[in-house]
């Protein structure tokens, strides 16, 4: 993200205008997740330019759009301001659903700030560094992003190697809590994991190194290798 221009105001303006190339737009979105001033600048530009939307003629959407929307919200619970909304039955179903990946690719990454929230997980410098952690770098290793279907998708931004007898496990630590909630084991191959749980804004996400199959106790047993805080980006 270091190759972005420093001018936050101009970046925000062009991000909102939509003229940035997809790669730069993606970088702006990622930076906005950790930069409240950039988020405010984006919101201010959305407000300034919004009256221009009157320049496009209104058009009646097809009837099928509302039907599609109601079908979608049937499977996606609204996110409560303070808590976890997805019921367990939906969670188990969604966890296994290939539709997650379809939705994920449909949403794309390029305009992550257009999604409600995402987090960036960074290696915490004070924690043990394992072989899989590229030391001395501040670049995010993982990214998590809300999907239109209400799940959280976590994926590696670069290849992460794990010993054959180990697994990486994802956890959510809500603000003020001391015991993390297990969200699932990250797959050894593939692009990431989709968690149907819906952590609130400010929740810390942790990735720990565990025995194969994940921690048997429901609490992290191994070292926490990556951590990051969930920011709402709207």
């Amino acid at each position: 993200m270091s190759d972005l221009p420093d001018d936050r105001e101009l970046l925000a303006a062009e991000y909102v205008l939509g003229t940035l190339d997809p790669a730069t737009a993606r970088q702006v979105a990622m930076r906005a997740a950790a930069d409240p001033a950039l988020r405010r600048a984006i919101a201010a530009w959305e407000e300034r330019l919004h009256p221009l939307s009157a320049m496009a003629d209104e058009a009646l959407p097809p009837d099928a759009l509302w039907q599609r929307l109601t079908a979608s919200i049937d499977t996606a619970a609204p996110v409560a301001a303070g808590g976890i909304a997805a019921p367990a039955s939906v969670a188990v179903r969604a966890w296994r659903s290939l539709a997650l990946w379809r939705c994920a690719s449909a949403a794309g990454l390029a305009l992550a700030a257009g999604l409600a929230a995402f987090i960036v997980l960074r290696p915490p410098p004070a924690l043990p560094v394992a072989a899989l952690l590229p030391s001395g770098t501040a670049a995010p290793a993982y990214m998590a992003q809300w999907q239109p279907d209400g799940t959280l998708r976590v994926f590696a931004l670069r290849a992460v190697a794990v010993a054959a007898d180990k697994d990486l496990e994802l956890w959510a630590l809500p603000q003020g809590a001391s015991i993390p909630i297990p969200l699932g084991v990250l797959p050894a191959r593939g692009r990431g994991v989709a968690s149907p749980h819906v952590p609130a804004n400010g929740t810390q996400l942790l990735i720990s190194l565990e025995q194969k199959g994940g921690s048997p106790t429901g609490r992290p047993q191994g070292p926490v290798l990556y951590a990051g805080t969930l920011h709402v980006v709207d």
Partner: protein
Amino acid sequence: MVHLAATERFPGPPDPRSEDATLSALLTRCGAGDRTAFRRLYDLESKRLYGLALRITRQPTLAADAVHDALLQVWQRAALFDPARGSVAAWLTGLVRYRAIDAMRRRAREVTGVDLPEAADEAPGALDRLLASATGQALHRCLNGLEQGQRQVIVMAFVEGLSHAELAERLERPLGTVKSWIRRGLQALKACLES
């Protein structure tokens, strides 16, 4: 330069704050899972949002996808919307535009054989639609204070979702000129709106 006495042409423009208060109240109810409120919000905003997406994508399927994904997110995240962020309508506009633009950037524009609409700023009085709201009137005044090239690229980029390269092609200007117009135009616009 277009000078119009807005109040003569549009007696009593709608107050965007009261319109947005309605949307804001509906959003709060959506956050509590109220589908009737969601339907009302859809009825109020879907034509505007779909029209916006259609102008950018020029393809009904992509436009519908953009509005669907945006409104699904609105339903899911309604309880988290922070009114201090700005107006609900501007938030909705952003959600839909980002998706529509993203969809277009990820597939080559299929414009062969399709007549492009007139550039948004070419017709005299094209920006008069902005006069229908108080915030639009300020933007109208400030856009008209820009140099023509600056005004044109900003309006075309916003309304049609064009990239730097597409703007350069449409206006038959070098890429560097277009980028410079955008940068200076945006800076001047902000200064004017804040003055």
